[in-house]
């Protein structure tokens, strides 16, 4: 059977509206899950929401009824702690019922704190330890070349996550092999678990680093749906290098008291904070 982008028939402006609506749903859903579980990583859920919505509702080809279709585009959530957003987008995309989101981190739930491919469809690899996604994505992209498939491989990493050396081993291999159908998206929210990235172990100039490793680099506003659709939707055959999208984002984006505040890395809301956030997320 053929695979299609979820939003294939939708045209330009409508598609942007659709992605925006989906991103809002992801934030509301993720925060509801975190509030109920009193566990999770809402800051990073919110910084990634627009990127996830763009990929699943504007860019990627997949069939939720045939989640291991050999021609599917692959997505790897390397920042595996942000399962609030990841499970929400998978449910919205039809991989499993949205009602299942209520079981987030409950005993024996398939919605573990970090994603498990043996529990749920739509998950390519188990993540949680940072710095694992890109090497696996590189392997998937090499397999695509070996089998002459035209699927694309996307991987979303945190920015603090890039302090892990494994990413740079994988980046070197991707650049060397000119894996043009591979796209790395960096959720550049400038915060990690305990502090700002630049105060911990600085990453800048981050674009130069990726360029030096053989990537084509695009720097965009990671909350601008039009820009995300444009850059992620571009034909990978138009370049002979892997693509790195540095998505400048705001951790906690969408809720005033959470934005750019490190305490919301794994902070969880009180009932009042939850109610306030839901008022803002409209």
């Amino acid at each position, binding site marked *: 059977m053929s695979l299609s982008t979820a939003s294939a028939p939708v045209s330009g402006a409508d598609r942007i509206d659709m992605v925006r609506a989906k991103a809002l749903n992801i934030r509301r859903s993720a925060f509801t899950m975190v509030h109920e579980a009193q566990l999770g990583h809402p800051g990073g859920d919110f910084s990634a929401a627009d990127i996830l919505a763009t990929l699943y509702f504007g860019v990627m080809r997949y069939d939720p009824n045939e989640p291991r279709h050999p021609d599917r585009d692959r997505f790897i959530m390397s920042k595996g702690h942000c399962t609030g957003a990841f499970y929400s987008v998978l449910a919205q995309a039809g991989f499993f019922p949205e009602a299942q989101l209520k079981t987030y981190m409950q005993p024996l*739930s*398939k919605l573990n704190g970090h994603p498990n491919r043996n529990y749920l469809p739509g998950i390519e690899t188990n993540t949680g330890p940072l710095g694992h996604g890109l090497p696996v994505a590189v392997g998937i992209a090499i397999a695509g070349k070996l089998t002459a498939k035209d699927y694309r491989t996307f991987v979303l990493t945190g920015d603090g996550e890039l302090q892990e050396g494994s990413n740079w081993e994988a980046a070197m291999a991707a650049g060397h092999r000119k894996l043009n159908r591979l796209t790395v998206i960096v959720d550049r929210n400038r915060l*990690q678990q305990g502090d700002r990235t630049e105060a*911990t172990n600085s990453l800048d100039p981050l674009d130069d680093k990726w360029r030096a490793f053989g990537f084509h680099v695009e720097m965009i506003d990671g909350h601008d749906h039009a820009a995300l659709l444009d850059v992620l939707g571009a034909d990978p055959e138009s370049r002979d290098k892997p693509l790195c999208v540095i998505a400048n984002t705001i951790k906690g984006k969408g809720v005033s008291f959470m934005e750019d505040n490190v305490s919301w890395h794994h902070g969880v809301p009180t009932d009042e904070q939850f109610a306030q956030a839901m008022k803002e997320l409209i």
Partner: protein
Amino acid sequence: MSAATKTNEGLYDCRDAFSKTLEALAEADDRVVAVVNDSVGSSKLGGFKKRWPERLVNVGIAEQNMVGVGAGLANGGRIPFVSCASCFLTGRALEQVKADVAYSNTNVKLCGQSPGIGYGELGPTHHSIEDLAWLRPLANLVTIVPSDPWETEQAIRFAAAYEGPVFIRVSRYPVPALEHKIDRIEPGKAEVMREGTDVAILANGVMLHKALRAAEVLAEGGVSARVVNMAWMNPLDIEAIVDAAGTGAVVTVEEASVRGGLGGAVAETLALRRPVPMELVGFPGFVPTGTVDFLFDHFGLTAAGIAAAARKAISRKE
């Protein structure tokens, strides 16, 4: 118990004993430094960072580099306490632990935070139930699994004074302060916590207090259980293990995989020296989603589960 902070109901988070002891050591000896991987908060080292910002080396999210940097700091005459979630310290950086620390025999103190299933719902990537099996074959690496805040403090003090590589598990799961009959820990010495003649329960870490409760449960049924604190994984108290087998039945209990950890060490010892029926209490493999207490219940790491394992071992006596 000086370094302990009470949590609710007389239970303690051993990370508090760890950080307070480390601060006391750092105050007395400026060679003491901390090395972390974006783990200041989870290691409870915020106070250390405030007092000695230049002596807290945060390498970012980079555990392999963190352990290598620790070895380098030791080379430069510092006493590095490398503090990181045990899963990443021992899993991600295992080769650095082996080559740069154990094999090179460097003066590095590895502090595995929130080990076992301490991270509960975050799942097996964040659990560290394999660490004991991974580290046990590493020669030179002194390995301690403290059971409560006092023993954690003792282990940290021992590590600072000892010249050589040490790994210490630092638990977050709330535990009671136990009654120890010794006033300082002795390297490689098991501590008999309770005498008994029908079965011996060998336990360490946060399972020790559960083993003691299991012995009470067993006593109510007329079974006399010895309880031995096996905090020292390396050096291992071989004689205490052989002696325990004198009861005719042995149970090991650990917040770890049943493959290769304390159970493995005791089984190896007894197979060579004094085979007796044995039961191993621990985790069989990757665990499902759940809170820490749910998972302990699910896999029988409870007083009742340990007592049942003891009865089973006794029933298998010749």
